[in-house]
């Protein structure tokens, strides 16, 4: 028995494919691809009519916090996994800043075991770069890699000590590991709450200056160039950060960068009214920085769009702005945010979808995120034009910290297929 997806618009950025096609899935793998109307279904085959729909490789997220273990009241791998597949993701890189921190092989194995047991999307664990994310001692990177960790990061924290960051990059380079950088100079951030600019001035909130990000982007990019290590910036938010990454790339450094979906559609003005859902780290920036990120994607400097999914419960968010924790949901709203770039900023669909598929795959150095005969059948079928409301009921996260709740969004995931199995459908 096989699954036939007929007459969809197949968009595969890995091969720059954009054509109407039929796709057959057998035993979890893509077994056949042909022109639309060329493949016929057998008696026992299931058929998905994708006429008018877009069919893309399953999305890959490079950074979600799913809070398990330790903070299951905010999210767990099951609720996070359900959010992910509803958002079209078939692969989710999971951040290690749980309680306890994922800084050893056992915890890496735990995430993978849960991933297999749940059978929603593939969770790929990351390991902390330093023990306990304390920025003091290197965590056992090679051991975690052998256990299945795909990258290393202190998620949500920089390695403030430049010498330790150099060592981490150098050590990682020896094992061919990828390091994810949370670029923030903690001293310059100075316990701020919102982008430093007109909004922080008007609301009387302590500012997070752009330069707190940019100085660490510059430092880490130079260290990556110096050490030859692979470095990825998890969530860039400023025009000058994009510029620094472009410079490093031109110099031949193995440096990549991503933008979080919310930074592509929201600005610091969305904090108005002290909306704690819009309190995010790195913060929502000015509109000109937002536009610079979009140009960074257009130019290929930024090669991934992440959900930056960071659930927080009402305990963390239902309070005054200064006391609220950082973070917003993202898994279910990433596709509409990405498609907004096609509609409003004339980006090519393949460029935007590349940031959700082939781009993240290349950053991870993994042979995923493509639609080819013989490859794993991870696919997302969506209608780029269908509008839907992100209602509290539609939200599958345990938390509800999203500026998009109650908003009408354009671009709707209809089916998500992971390893040949339909894991989400509406």
């Amino acid at each position, binding site marked *: 028995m096989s699954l036939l997806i007929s007459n969809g618009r197949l968009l595969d950025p890995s091969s720059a494919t954009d054509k109407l096609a039929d796709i057959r899935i057998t035993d979890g793998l893509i077994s056949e691809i042909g022109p639309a109307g060329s493949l016929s279904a057998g008696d026992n085959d299931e058929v998905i009519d994708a006429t008018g729909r877009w069919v893309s490789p399953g999305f890959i997220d490079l950074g979600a916090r799913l809070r398990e273990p330790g903070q299951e009241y905010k999210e767990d791998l099951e609720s996070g996994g359900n959010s992910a597949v509803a958002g079209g993701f078939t692969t989710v890189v999971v951040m290690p800043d749980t309680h306890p921190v994922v800084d050893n092989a056992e915890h890496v194995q735990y995430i993978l075991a849960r991933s297999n047991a749940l059978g929603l999307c593939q969770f790929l664990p990351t390991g902390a770069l330093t023990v306990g994310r304390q920025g003091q001692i290197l965590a056992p990177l090679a051991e975690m890699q052998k256990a299945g960790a795909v990258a290393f990061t202190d998620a949500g924290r920089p390695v403030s000590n430049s010498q330790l960051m150099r060592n981490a990059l150098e050590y990682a380079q020896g094992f061919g590991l990828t390091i994810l950088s949370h670029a923030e100079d903690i001293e310059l951030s100075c316990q701020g709450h919102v982008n430093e600019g007109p909004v*922080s001035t008007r609301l*009387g909130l302590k500012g997070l200056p752009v330069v707190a990000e940019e100085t660490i982007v510059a430092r880490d990019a130079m260290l990556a160039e110096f050490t030859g290590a692979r470095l990825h910036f998890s969530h860039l938010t400023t025009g000058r950060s994009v510029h620094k990454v472009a410079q490093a790339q031109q110099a031949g450094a193995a440096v990549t960068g991503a933008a979080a979906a919310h930074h592509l559609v929201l600005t610091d003005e969305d904090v108005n009214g002290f909306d704690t859902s819009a309190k995010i780290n790195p913060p929502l920036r000015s509109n000109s920085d937002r536009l610079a990120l979009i140009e960074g994607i257009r130019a290929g400097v930024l090669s991934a769009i992440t959900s930056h999914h960071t659930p927080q419960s009402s305990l963390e968010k239902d309070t005054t702005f200064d006391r609220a924790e950082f973070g917003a949901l993202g898994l279910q709203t990433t596709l509409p945010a990405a498609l907004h770039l096609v509609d409003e900023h004339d980006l090519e669909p393949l460029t935007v979808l590349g940031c959700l598929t082939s781009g993240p795959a290349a950053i991870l150095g993994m042979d995923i995120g493509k639609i080819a005969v013989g490859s794993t059948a991870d696919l997302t079928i969506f209608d780029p034009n269908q509008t839907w409301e992100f209602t509290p009921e539609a939200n599958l996260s345990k938390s509800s910290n999203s500026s998009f709740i109650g908003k009408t969004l354009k671009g709707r995931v209809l089916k998500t297929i992971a390893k040949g199995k339909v894991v989400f459908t509406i």
Partner: protein
Amino acid sequence: MIAGQHLLGMRGMDAATIYGILATAKGFKEISRRKIKKVPSLRGRTILNVFYENSTRTRVSFELAAKRLSADGVNISASGSAVAKGESLLDMAQTLNAMQADAVIIRHAASGAPHYLADRISARVINAGDGLHEHPSQALLDIMTIWEKFDELDGLNVAIVGDIKHSRVARSNLIAMKTLGMNVRVAGPSTLLPRDLEAVYGCTVCESVGQAVEGAHVVMALRLQKERMNSGLLPSLREYSVEYGINSQLLRTTQDNAILMHPGPVNRGIELSPDVVDGQRSVILDQVENGVAVRCALLYLILGGSQP
């Protein structure tokens, strides 16, 4: 005008409303100078003073205002209440709501705390200072003080000097003064001026205090919190007073009828030299007196009392 509304900030308040509040305050000032200062306007109404930060002027003047209007006022301060036991603002809001207060006056270290409360309680919320954000009753009493000395506010030159960045007084005044057509010039150490100040408030940032003060009708100095030195924003109090302190020599360059203001409490010898604090131009004590009158007017108008 503002009947039945919250007072969260000066943003969005139009000139007619400001003048309306001040006209009412003028009447209350007159009553305040009578031997019998009490009127029955808010008899039977309950007003809670919730102060999460220390305050003398603001707290006492709101308290006096409530008493003069015959309302029942209760003070809750952070140190002597459940706040000290770590009660959250959410729980405090629910508790206050259950007490059926008509108005809650709140001072809080968090910008936006009154907005948070206003979304969650049925009483009217009056912002008595939130973090670095706004202090609307202070701006109104400041404008009242200026209006007493100058009939026409439109076109007046105002110099605001000092730590704008950490001042909710400056923010509320900048908004109100712009609304009323005043020209505001600011001066202070660059580390104490928030980013995009000119763009946000339509004021002019001057290179020196002398430039700001020259030709001014109103000079307003802001209080310098001494902890600013610890965070490396300033080298020393001495350097601040030399560069940004207001003294009689500087005041010679203002308009002849210029007034000197300060929200208090004054650090004598730092923001202001002692002679100008007590000098002829100083209207600092008028500000205090007007504070009671303005707060009477606010409570009266918001709670819709009968005629005073």
